[in-house]
């Protein structure tokens, strides 16, 4: 380990944990990044039919609580729609 790695805390255990967290989500749910992307596109298309949203700011993540996981979708609404109303 060189001085910089030691100083900035770039430790191998940390990357092992981060990598495992991602691997385990995929192992447990059969959700791979491609499936998540496809799901996101479908969601955006469905929601856009009714509300005005910015597709670029939509986030989809898998969160876990104990050994169970849930899909979290964060879909910010456009501010412009409110202005139009007011």
């Amino acid at each position, binding site marked *: 380990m060189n001085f910089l790695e030691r100083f900035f805390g770039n430790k*191998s*255990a940390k990357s*092992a*944990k981060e*990598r*495992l967290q991602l691997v*385990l989500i995929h*192992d447990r749910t059969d959700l791979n990044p491609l499936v998540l992307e496809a799901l996101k596109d479908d969601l955006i298309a469905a929601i856009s039919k009714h509300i005005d949203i910015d597709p670029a700011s939509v986030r989809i993540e898998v969160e876990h609580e*104990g*050994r169970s996981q849930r899909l979290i979708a964060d879909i910010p609404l456009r501010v412009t729609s409110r202005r139009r109303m007011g």
Partner: protein
Amino acid sequence: MTAKVITVTSGKGGVGKTTTVANIAVALALGGKKVVCIDGDIGLRNLDVVMGLENRIVYDIVDIVEGRCRTRQAMIRDKRLPELFLIPAAQTRDKNAVSPSDMVRLCDELRPEMDWILIDSPAGIERGFRNSIAAADKILIVTNPEMSAVRDADRVIGLLEAEEKNSPSLIINRLNPNLVKRGDMLSVDDVYDLLRIEVIGIVPEDENVIVASNKGAPLSMEAKARAGQAFRNIARRLNGEEVPFLDLDSHSLWDRIGKFGWRK
């Protein structure tokens, strides 16, 4: 007596299942319990050598299942601990020679005479694993603080959840406290965070484990070795005692002198 059946499994091979079974069995027997170990790894038996009983095998588990001997005849008594027995795996047969219902039947036959039945599962998630968990009241998953071992442990935990078995407990084996301190090994907290099942044992890496298996005398027979102590603690926890985890940071006196005296 009604024995409790404990199965030790892991997914990945080489993480220390057989060592764990031998040591917990010895520790339970040292506490005066009647213990029988069953080697579930048909075709690749090893529990016999780790326990130092390899020269005394006449019959094995397949002989019992196929009716060539009575169960008693295949149980090798450990002369050092008269209440400890081993039922060895067959070496020249394959895992399909035994079925899950054979295992359930064998354990039911042994239950009234024993306090503990310990089953050493083979690695993997196939027939041998299925056989080994069929009769289990409690499942212990052995892992190492290392990527592939943790991943495979998670896979096994998932399979057990799907089978609606009781929630398994985790043994983190071969933890190297110095590597953890340096940030180069997953810590107990990291592994717990990832797997989220109860931790029942933390066993430090200890070269005495290799010495012990060379000699065929499981480490928990020795009072001093740290790994032996960790295994004895697991046995006590299985008996329902509350035992704190070993403090793995404070090493021997020499380590401490080294830390403060000759700091570079």
